C-alpha cells in the first residue's frame, strides 16, 4: 500500500436501540481508491459520517498522517482535508455554480464578493473534474450527473485529500456514471484518495484498489486488487453463500392475484404500466433512484392515486383513491420510510400492531382491548419481534424490529397482495434474513408479493421475476434464470432490452 494518509482504529458508535459500529477500522493510502461495501445497516454510513465529522465516535481514534485527529465537526474534517459527498446532493439550486463552489468561502474585496476572482477560480476546479459549463450557470438547470461533479469540484476547492463518495452513481445514467469513473481515475492519478461506497459490485470491481467489507457493524474482511470478485465480495458481505442467505423455494401458483393494466402514475403519466403478479410469486421492482418504482407502489396503494389504467385484485376491479380502499381490497404496503410512514414512533408495539385492524375488530366503535392484546402477543411471538413487552414504545426498537411491527400490522388483515418498498433498508443482517424468511413464508401461503429494492443482491436473491424500471417505464422483464447484475443494470440505465422476454407468461 502507498503511504497511509488516513487511519481509523476500532471505532464504535451507538444510537438508542442500535449499536451501529462495534469496533471498525479502516486505512486509506495516498492516491488509493478504497471501496467500502456491505449490506444496508452494516455501518457504512455511520463510518463515513464519523470520518467527515458529521458525527463523533463513542470510542476509537482517527489518525491523519499518523497524528491523532479529533474530527468534532465538518469544518474540522474539511480543514484536515476530508470531504464527504452525500448521496443526496447538498447544493443551493437557486445559486450559480461558482457561488455553490465557494459558499461560505467567497473571495472578498473590501467586504464585497470579488466576482471576477470567484468565477476565475471556479473555472479552474470545474476543468479539474471535466465539467464543461460556465461558472455562471444556475445549478438547478444542470443534470444530476453534472451537479455531482459540482459537488466534487467543491470538495477539491477545499484542498481535500480524501474524498468520501456515498453511492455516487445511485441516480446517474450510464453515460454520467462513465464520466464520473473517468474523473475518479484522474483524481487518483493526481494523488487524491477516494473512499467509495456502493452497492454496485460491478463498479467496485472496476474502480477499487482495495475493498473493505463491513457486516453488522464490524470489519468482515478486506480484498486486495487481485482478490476482488463478485463472489468473494458477496461472501464477505452476507457471511455465507448467497443461496443460504436468501431462502428461495418456488411457490408460484397459476392464478393471477394482481393485474395492472395501463396504470399511469401521477409522476410519470405518459408511461402506462402493465404487469401481473401471481399467487405465491415474488416480483422485484429494480431500477435507479428516480426510476419510478416507489411511485408504482404508492399508486397501487392509493397514496398517490393513479391517473389512469385499471387494477384488479383476484379479478375484482379496484379504484385506488385512498389507502382505505386499497386495504379493503386486500392490499398492504410496507413503505420505504419506516419512521415516517410505517410506524407511529411514540406509540407502543401493541397500538402499532393493531392500528390497521382496529376497524375490522371494533364493536360499535369501541376498541376490542382483549383482541388487541391477543393480536400483539401473537405477532411478537410469530414474527419474533425483540421487545421487552407490547407496551414498549416503538421508537426504542431496532430498525429490524420496527419493520417487523409494520409487517405484523398487515398480517393481522391477511392481505392478498403485499407491497414492500425497500423492505430491509437500514436494518441489521440478522433481522434482514428474518424478513426474507417471512417473505418466503408468505409466498408459500399464496400471498402475491411485489417489492421494490435498490439492493442488487436482494433483487437477485429474492425475486421469482424482476421488472426493471427506467425513467417511469418498465424497460424489461427478467425471469429468475435470466437474472444477473449486468442484465439488470443494462435495463436500469436505459439500454434497450436485450436478452429479456417481454411476455410475463414465459417464466419458470
Amino acid at each position, binding site marked *: 500500500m502507498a503511504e497511509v494518509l488516513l487511519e481509523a482504529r476500532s471505532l464504535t458508535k451507538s444510537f438508542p436501540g442500535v449499536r451501529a459500529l462495534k469496533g471498525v477500522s479502516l486505512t486509506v493510502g495516498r492516491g488509493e481508491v478504497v471501496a467500502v461495501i456491505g449490506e444496508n445497516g452494516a455501518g457504512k454510513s455511520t463510518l463515513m459520517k464519523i470520518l467527515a465529522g458529521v458525527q463523533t465516535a463513542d470510542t476509537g481514534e482517527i489518525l491523519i498522517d499518523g497524528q491523532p485527529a479529533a474530527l468534532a465537526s465538518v469544518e474540522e474534517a474539511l480543514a484536515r482535508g476530508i470531504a464527504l459527498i452525500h448521496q443526496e446532493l447538498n447544493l443551493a439550486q437557486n445559486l450559480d455554480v461558482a457561488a455553490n463552489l465557494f459558499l461560505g468561502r467567497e473571495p472578498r474585496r473590501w467586504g464585497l464578493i470579488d466576482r471576477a476572482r470567484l468565477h476565475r477560480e471556479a473555472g479552474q476546479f470545474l476543468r479539474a473534474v471535466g465539467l464543461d459549463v460556465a461558472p455562471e450557470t444556475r445549478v438547478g438547470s444542470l443534470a444530476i450527473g453534472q451537479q455531482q461533479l459540482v459537488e466534487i469540484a467543491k470538495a477539491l476547492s477545499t484542498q481535500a485529500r480524501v474524498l468520501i463518495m456515498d453511492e455516487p452513481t445511485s441516480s446517474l445514467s450510464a453515460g454520467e456514471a462513465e464520466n464520473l469513473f473517468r474523473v475518479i481515475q484522474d483524481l487518483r492519478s493526481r494523488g487524491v484518495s477516494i473512499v467509495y461506497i456502493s452497492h454496485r459490485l460491478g463498479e467496485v470491481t472496476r474502480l477499487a484498489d482495495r475493498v473493505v467489507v463491513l457486516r453488522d457493524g464490524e470489519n468482515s474482511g478486506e480484498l486486495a486488487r487481485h482478490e476482488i470478485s463478485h463472489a468473494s465480495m458477496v461472501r464477505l458481505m452476507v457471511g455465507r453463500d448467497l443461496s443460504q442467505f436468501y431462502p428461495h423455494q418456488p411457490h408460484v401458483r397459476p392464478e393471477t392475484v394482481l393485474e395492472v393494466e395501463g396504470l399511469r402514475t401521477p409522476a410519470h403519466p405518459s408511461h402506462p404500466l402493465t404487469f401481473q403478479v401471481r399467487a405465491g410469486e415474488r416480483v422485484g421492482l429494480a431500477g435507479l433512484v428516480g426510476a419510478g418504482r416507489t411511485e408504482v407502489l404508492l399508486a397501487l396503494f392509493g397514496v398517490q392515486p393513479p391517473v389512469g389504467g385499471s387494477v384488479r385484485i383476484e379479478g375484482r376491479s379496484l379504484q385506488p383513491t385512498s389507502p382505505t380502499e386499497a386495504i379493503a381490497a386486500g392490499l398492504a404496503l410496507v413503505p420505504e420510510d419506516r419512521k415516517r410512514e410505517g410506524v407511529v414512533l*411514540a406509540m407502543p408495539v401493541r397500538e402499532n400492531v393493531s392500528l390497521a385492524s382496529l376497524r375490522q375488530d371494533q364493536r360499535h366503535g369501541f376498541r376490542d382491548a382483549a383482541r388487541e392484546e391477543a393480536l400483539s402477543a401473537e405477532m411478537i411471538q410469530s414474527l419474533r419481534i425483540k421487545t421487552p413487552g407490547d407496551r414498549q414504545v416503538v421508537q426504542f426498537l431496532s430498525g429490524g424490529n420496527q419493520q417487523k411491527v409494520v409487517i405484523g400490522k398487515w398480517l393481522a388483515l391477511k392481505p392478498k397482495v403485499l407491497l414492500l418498498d425497500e423492505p430491509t433498508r437500514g436494518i441489521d443482517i440478522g433481522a434482514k434474513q428474518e424478513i426474507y424468511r417471512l417473505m418466503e413464508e408468505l409466498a408459500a401461503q399464496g400471498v402475491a408479493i411485489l417489492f421494490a429494492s435498490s439492493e442488487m443482491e436482494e433483487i437477485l436473491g429474492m425475486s421469482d421475476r424482476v421488472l426493471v424500471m427506467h425513467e417511469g417505464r418498465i424497460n424489461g422483464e427478467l425471469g429468475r434464470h435470466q437474472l444477473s447484475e449486468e442484465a439488470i443494470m443494462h435495463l436500469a440505465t436505459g439500454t434497450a432490452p436485450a436478452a429479456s422476454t417481454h411476455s410475463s407468461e414465459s417464466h419458470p
Partner: protein
Amino acid sequence: MKKLLGIFGLLLAVCLFATWASESFRSGYNVENLIRRTALFGVIGIGVTFVIVTGGIDLSIGSVICLVGCGLPWLLTVQHWSLPAALAAVIAVSVGIGLAHGLLITRLRLQPFIVTLCGLMLYRGITRGFTADQTVGFADGYKGLRLLATGKIPVPGIQGFEIPAPWAVLVVVAIAAAVFLNRTIYGRYLLALGNNENAARYSGIDTSRMIVLAYVLCSTLAGLGGVLFVLDVNSAQPVDFGNFYELYAIAAAVLGGCSLRGGEGSILGVIIGTALILVLRNVVTLVTNHSNIEFAIIGAVILAGVITDELVKRYAVRRRAARELNR
C-alpha cells in the same frame, strides 16, 4: 401518569399556600366561585384538547364564546326568538364553524393557526356588528335556564357547601370525552394521526375526516362554553366577552399533559390544568392586590412547567442511552 401527579401536586401546593396567605381565599364564596369557573373553563379546555391531540391549534375559541354568548341573549331578548330555536341556532353555528375550520385545514391544506386566527377576528367582529357593540343580557328572565350555570347541588351530609351546577355538565362532558379518546377506535385514530399523520393514513385511517371531527368537537364545546358563560354572568359585552379564553384553554391543555406537537392528551389532566390556572389567577389577585400582573405570573408558571417537562424528558432519554451503552 407521573406528569398528572406532578401537576396535581403543584395545584395542591398553590392551594395550601393561598389558604395560608389569604383569608379571603378560603371563604366559602371564593371556593365555590373557583370551582364553578373551573367547570366552565374545563369544558372549553376539553374541546381544544381534541384539536391539540391532532397537532393542530384553535385560536378562535374566545371569539366563538363571544358569538354564542352574545348571540343567545340577543336572539332571545332583541329578536324575541323562542328558547329552543335560539339554543338550536347557536349550537348549529358552533358546529358549522368547526366544520368550516376542519374542511379548510384538510381540503385546502391551510394551516390551523391561520384559519383559526382569521376565525378569532371574524366571529368577534361579526358579533360586534349585529349587536352594534351594545351589552346584551337576560335581565331578570330565563331564571330556570340560568340555573344550569348558577345553580347549586347540595351534597348530602355536608353543611354549608354545595356543588355548583356546571360541574354536572363538566362531569358528563369529561366522561364522554375520556371514553371517546381512550376506549373507541376513533380516539386511537386521533392519537395516532397526531403522532404521525402519514403512518395513520398508510394504515387506512381517513385522517382528514378525523381532523374535521376534532375541530367540530372543539367549536361545539366552545359554543356550549359560551352558553354557560353568559348564563353565569347574565350579560355580555361583545367587545371583550370571552377575550383570551382560548389562551387559557390551550395553556390548561398544555399544563395538563398535551403536547402541541400532537399525539398526547389527557382529559383529567386538562381539568387539573384548568383548576391550576384559575387558582393562580385568583391567588395573584387576592395575595398581591395587583391583579394587573396576573398574566405575567401565569405565563411564568406555564413556561417553568414546560421547561421542567422538557428537561425531564431529555434526562430520561440520556439515561436510557447510557443503559444501552452499558448493555
